[in-house]
């Protein structure tokens, strides 16, 4: 049996982005002994990529904003499949979480009165996103990191968890390896929080880093937890499309928030051609009215470019498909045009969107203050994840909590931009609080040494095979999966190809699991990719199965064979669970009824 190092903690947190860090700070503040495990170095998590801002109804720019409006916007954006309790908690608590970041040293852009400035974003009725230029995620993670390192938790960097460990029906720890040495670690803890982020690496065109392999989704699923909403994957409408090496790289919605116009090859602002009934009353009739909105005219309505991401992505796909796309298969996003409208336009763009300016200048050789960008949809975010209790964030398995992207419910069928950063800190804090309380009440349980041994054998197995498959490499199998998901479980779906995708993922899993790897255990990315693959297969299968089950089009899920929204399906979400025989079980589940008081808020917000 290979050796491992053992660690005892009250709370183990897997993932150190915004949600994991916030949970660690909270649990530590409550006196728990905390382990914070990062797959990468601390402070490098995908949170740094969040650009636009953090949604919180503080009303600093428009005093008409309130938690009620934010709640109603979130529910409408999610096409009412959201967990209403989570949407309520989120809308009520995010202003405090923003102010708390400021108290910990974050520096946001300011209003003329010296308060935190808020910007417009898709689906938000009022300017609501607290932001710092277009690097809000970096500001958030650095603030949490710099505050966090003085709170007394232990951090384990570049450590990947491969299995959760259980005591009966309860999670009591986890098994993982250090990237640097390849040595194993066993964590024993009273409660475990998954804060592992998303699944973007299941797709070829993605804004997500190598880390986004659905680790928490698969760890939780394998430990018996239920996944929901896995058919809802957000394709961000504006990723870079050229040059090929940066395809999928995010272009912030903030560009449109500052007045950026989406145009087709004919120069037409095509977003104004198709405004969904749900948003008719809130959307400008003309580009002119839209511009007035962007510049703060409170009698004007939002430009059509600020419709929700699912809709904008579909309109872009339509333009490209109908032959009105840009030279490299996207459409044009033009911010340079605002120079006609404001003095010092060039300066203004550089100040408001510095990293976009930099990104296009360096990587595409294009000056966004002079020329339009070419953009197209990119896999960005998964609304689906572990089903959690809205108050405590505990999953359907005792002692296992989830927060941030890996948890589901808040966003329903489509997430509004800006609601992710606030989600991380609102529910990260709650997960930390309730996990610490759970650990205190229930102690640490007992670790099963046989489970530890199984996890070790599993991790080492690819070194022991000598069958020639090491020449294939895990990277190639991952590319195969990415191509498959992109083609068959992408923006537009249908029954035949979804069913094929389910079978092909199951088949590809066999190939992936049978691979051998070269080299030794010391910092060996080929081995790491092999170990990540099993998680990608699980989320790939879950997305395909859920997408196959939902026979309608709603939010981020579009079926060509069921192109309309079906009111009947609006009552259900889809749950996925590991069955007794190891196969994935799909179940349609009725949503809990919404209390009248919340229904009334939604009606009042029209």
């Amino acid at each position, binding site marked *: 049996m290979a050796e491992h190092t053992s660690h005892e903690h009250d709370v183990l947190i897997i993932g150190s982005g915004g949600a994991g860090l916030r949970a660690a700070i909270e649990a530590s503040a409550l006196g728990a002994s905390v382990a914070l495990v990062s797959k*990468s*170095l*601390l*402070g*490098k998590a*995908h949170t*740094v*990529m969040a650009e636009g801002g953090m949604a919180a109804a503080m009303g600093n720019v428009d005093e008409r904003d309130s938690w009620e409006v934010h709640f109603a916007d979130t529910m409408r954006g999610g096409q009412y499949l959201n967990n209403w309790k989570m949407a309520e908690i989120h809308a009520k608590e995010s202003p*405090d979480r923003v*102010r*708390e970041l*400021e*108290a*910990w*040293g974050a*520096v*946001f*852009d*300011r209003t003329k009165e*010296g*308060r935190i400035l808020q910007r417009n974003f898709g689906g938000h009725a009022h300017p609501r996103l607290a932001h*710092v*230029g277009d*690097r809000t995620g*970096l*500001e958030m993670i650095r603030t949490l990191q*710099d*505050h966090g*390192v*003085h709170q007394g938790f232990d951090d384990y*960097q570049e450590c990947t968890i491969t299995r959760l460990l259980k005591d009966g029906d309860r999670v009591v720890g986890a098994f993982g390896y250090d990237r*640097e040495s390849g040595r194993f670690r066993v964590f024993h803890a009273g409660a475990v929080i998954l804060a592992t982020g998303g699944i973007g690496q299941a797709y070829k065109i993605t804004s997500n*880093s*190598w*880390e986004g392999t659905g680790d928490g989704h698969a760890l939780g699923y394998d430990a018996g937890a239920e996944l929901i909403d896995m058919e809802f994957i957000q394709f961000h409408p504006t990723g870079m499309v*050229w*040059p*090929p*090496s*940066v395809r999928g*790289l995010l272009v912030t919605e903030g560009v449109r928030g500052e007045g950026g116009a989406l145009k087709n090859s004919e120069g037409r602002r095509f977003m104004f051609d198709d405004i969904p009934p749900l948003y008719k009353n809130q959307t400008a009739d003309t580009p002119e009215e839209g511009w007035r909105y962007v510049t703060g005219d409170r009698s004007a309505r939002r430009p059509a470019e600020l419709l929700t991401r699912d809709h904008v992505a579909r309109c872009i796909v339509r333009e490209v498909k109908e032959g009105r796309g840009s030279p490299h298969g996207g459409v044009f996003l033009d911010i340079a045009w605002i120079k006609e409208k404001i003095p010092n336009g060039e300066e203004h763009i550089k100040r408001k969107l510095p*990293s976009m300016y*930099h*990104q296009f200048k*360096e990587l*595409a050789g294009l000056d966004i203050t002079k020329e339009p960008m070419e953009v197209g949809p990119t896999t960005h975010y998964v609304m689906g994840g572990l089903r959690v209790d809205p108050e405590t964030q505990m999953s359907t398995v005792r002692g296992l909590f989830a927060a941030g992207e890996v948890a589901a419910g808040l966003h329903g069928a489509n997430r509004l931009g800006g609601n992710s950063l606030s989600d991380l800190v609102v529910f990260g804090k709650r997960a930390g609080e309730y996990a610490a309380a759970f650990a205190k009440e229930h102690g640490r349980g007992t670790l099963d040494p046989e489970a530890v041994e199984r996890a070790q054998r599993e991790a080492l197995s690819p070194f022991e095979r000598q069958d020639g498959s*090491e020449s294939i*490499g895990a*990277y*190639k199998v991952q*590319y195969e999966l990415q191509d498959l998901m992109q083609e068959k479980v992408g923006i537009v779906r249908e029954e035949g190809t979804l069913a094929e995708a389910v079978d092909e993922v199951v088949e590809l899993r066999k190939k992936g699991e049978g691979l051998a*790897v*070269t*080299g*030794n255990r*010391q*910092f*060996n*990315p*080929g081995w790491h990719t092999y170990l990540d693959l099993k998680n990608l297969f699980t989320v790939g299968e879950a997305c395909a199965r859920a997408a196959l089950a939902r026979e309608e089009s709603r939010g981020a899920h579009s079926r060509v064979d069921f192109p309309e929204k079906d009111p009947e399906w609006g009552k259900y979400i889809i749950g996925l669970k590991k069955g007794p025989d190891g196969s994935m079980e799909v179940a349609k589940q009725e949503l809990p009824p919404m209390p009248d008081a919340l229904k009334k808020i939604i009606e009042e917000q029209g």
Partner: protein
Amino acid sequence: MSTTKLRIWRGDASGGEFKEYETKLDEGMVVLDAVHQVQAEDAHDLAVRWNCKAGKCGSCSAEVNGMPRLMCMTRMDDLPADRPVTVEPMRAFPLVKDLVTDVSWNYEVKKKIRPFKPRKPDFDDGSWRMHQSDVDRVMEFRKCIECFLCQDVCHVLREHHMHDEFIGPRFLVHTAALEMHPLDTEDRREDLRTSHGTGLCNITKCCTNVCPEGITITDNAIIPLKERIVDEAYDPLKKLVQLVTGGRNE
């Protein structure tokens, strides 16, 4: 199809060598793409750090043709095509394997810097009033992505290995961000003068030259900090004025 040659350092703390690889070249490709292609095709266990691939996380720091760079922001077509592109790990930190170095020292240094300590909130809801002009100055420092390229190039660390005496440009920038934060009330001048070794910097501006975020490290962060220390130590009159006006912010 055109191809390119790379000389990539392979090895660990016990030794190693440059190995040459050939891989195909695509339009707009960056060095990190080429390294990833080599990894997928010829060297599955090639160790390299990366995350965002957009110049925002600061993970893929390395030395490309001898220059400290982010691999994800260095385009192949900006490098001379007539000879192989050399890619090697940062030299100021202990090597782990191939292109990966042990940067943990940086995390330890940061813990030693006195954290942010705000004045009492201006309002009952816990918020403060600050104007854009008050915060603009620290914004430059807060752009830092912690790639540690400035640490890598700093001769005090790179050549003289004074890691115990000097916190390096990254953490002088961090300290400057705290010291010039409009709400901060902590005083770090004594630390800067003594344990943080600010005096060891002799303003060669190498750090500023390599910063991928374009932070004017020497002029805007280090020199003002050096001035503060001098003011504190040798200018009792100014200190008295500051005491009376209550202002330290510039």
